[in-house]
């Protein structure tokens, strides 16, 4: 097999893994957008906030310690324990994300029911920057390493197998494999939740028609808190994966920018669309960088996804799986 093709396969596989991450972030967007028509600009910051909260709890930091120390002249930084078990810390963080969802609905969006989509969008922009500030204030702004015990480093089985086949061992990170498996489980779980549980069905009903949902006894408020909680949970999972990979720092919130082309491709209302869109973009940008990148000076990952999405948008504005928009005249 030609060497270049083997390399391209490795690049595609890695692209696929990155695509899973993109899909995860896009999924958070879709959940909220479907149920409430809100395009949540804050989804990326939510991932950052979740990851910071998780690290903070794990390391036993006192939240808002700078603020507390400044006001009371104290010197508190750490709680008596220094390493909280990962699972327990994750559960606590889930609790924090649920509380956040409840607050967002109670304080902001409850009062904006029925407003224009652009106003709701603006509110999420405000929310994003506010949350970023809160995250800073709560946990400090240093870069942290996140370790919840996920395996890292080259996967030797794949390395050996591919070496035996092609005479060249692929470098696939264990963390990426774990992330893919977790993402697959998460999606399967969400789909099962939406299909079979009372709350999931209520969520689908609200996504379809608010009036009808009310008439069968569904509380819109409850469903909106639910979808923000789920989006918070998805953000946490994305935050754990990205944070484990490249540390918990401000740039983590920029993964949201990668979700946008994914959504343009997959459609804003489709869960399968978010997944397939994420995979296409992940593989597409990796292959483009590999083949065309060297000719034009590299770093094409920054913009290729958007070009791909734009080209796509011209031919299929509703996205891969989005509902077709038919103008009524």
């Amino acid at each position, binding site marked *: 097999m030609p060497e270049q093709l083997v390399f391209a396969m490795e690049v595609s596989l890695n692209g696929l893994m990155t695509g899973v991450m993109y899909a995860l972030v896009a999924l958070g967007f879709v959940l909220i957008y479907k149920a409430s028509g809100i395009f949540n600009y804050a989804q990326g910051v939510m991932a950052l906030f979740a990851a910071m909260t998780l690290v903070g709890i794990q390391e036993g930091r006192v939240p808002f310690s700078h603020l507390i120390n400044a006001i009371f002249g104290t010197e508190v930084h750490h709680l008596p324990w220094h390493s909280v078990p990962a699972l327990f810390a994750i559960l606590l963080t889930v609790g924090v994300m649920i509380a956040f969802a409840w607050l967002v609905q109670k304080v902001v969006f409850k009062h904006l029911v029925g407003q224009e989509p652009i106003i709701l969008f603006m509110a999420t922009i405000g929310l994003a920057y506010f949350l970023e500030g809160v995250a800073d204030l709560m946990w400090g702004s240093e870069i942290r390493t996140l370790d919840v015990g996920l395996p890292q480093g080259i996967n030797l089985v794949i390395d050996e197998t591919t070496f035996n086949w092609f005479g060249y061992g692929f470098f696939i990170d264990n963390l990426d494999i774990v992330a893919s498996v977790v993402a697959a489980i998460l999606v399967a779980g969400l789909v099962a939740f939406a299909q079979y*549980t009372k709350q*999931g*069905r209520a969520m689908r009903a609200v996504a*379809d028609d608010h009036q009808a949902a*009310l008439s069968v006894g*569904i509380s819109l408020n409850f469903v909106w808190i639910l979808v923000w909680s789920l989006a918070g949970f998805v953000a946490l999972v994305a935050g754990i994966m990205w944070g484990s990979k490249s540390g918990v720092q401000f740039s983590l919130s920029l993964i949201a920018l990668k979700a946008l082309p994914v959504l343009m491709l997959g459609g804003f209302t489709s869960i399968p669309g978010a997944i397939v869109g994420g995979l296409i973009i992940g593989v597409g940008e990796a292959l483009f960088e590999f083949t065309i990148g060297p000719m034009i000076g590299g770093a094409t990952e920054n913009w290729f996804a958007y070009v791909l999405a734009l080209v796509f948008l011209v031919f299929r504005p509703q996205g891969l799986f989005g509902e077709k928009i038919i103008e009524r005249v």
Partner: protein
Amino acid sequence: MTMMHYEPHVTSDGRTIGNTMMEMKNITLRFGGVVAIKDISFDIREGEIRAIIGPNGAGKSSMLNVISGFYKPQEGEVWYLGEKRGPMRPFEVARQGIARTFQNIALFEGMTVLDNIMTGRLNHMSASFLDQAIWWGKAEREEVANREKAEEIIDFLEIQAIRKTPVGRLPYGLKKRVELARALVAEPSLLLLDEPMAGMNVEEKEDMSRFILDVNDEFGTTIALIEHDMGVVMDLSDRVVVMDYGKKIGDGTPDEVRNNQEVIDAYLGVAHD
């Protein structure tokens, strides 16, 4: 018009009309300068079919929306099952056993007929999804029971053939029927129907009339419905409220209302469709 004394009784076709189920007291509803409902009082008795009629824009839908909690009246009281109702949101009203359909049909267009109808059972599902995750057996039994109820209603309304069809693809008349099915499957004590026969052809209207009578007769469901067509109303209902320009201009049995001069004038004066 003087109200005839109306006591619990058994109708000529053997149905029982019981005590007051719902009582609207001096309801006034405004939208800015528009007074949609002007100081209206009336009651709904257990087991009856109560009609609200009147010309376009009379305030009929507004009244139904007040009953179902979609609109909040500025003045007046709503009494349900002997208790005064506080300010209530629509989903809370629904959970009290009041189901409804809409004049402009509100269905889940992206779901199949069966899925639409199953949403009507949501309040008959157990409270927590943790329950459902832990007690598979219990959740499954519940699901089976809900499915059975849904199938029963599907048979009753003769829509077996379209069970799996996405609602968005159905013609208007069938959509109305699916909407009725979704309301019925909740086993409501009070069923509110906003123009259930609007836009239907004669045959569809006859079917719908028959279904409404059967629901009342077989399930004992109390029904309040809005209808334009005088003829249909006279055939279906036990008692009629007549509205015009937000005011109540008549209230009584179809015969009483038919012979009321003010009602005749309203209908002749604004006879459109």
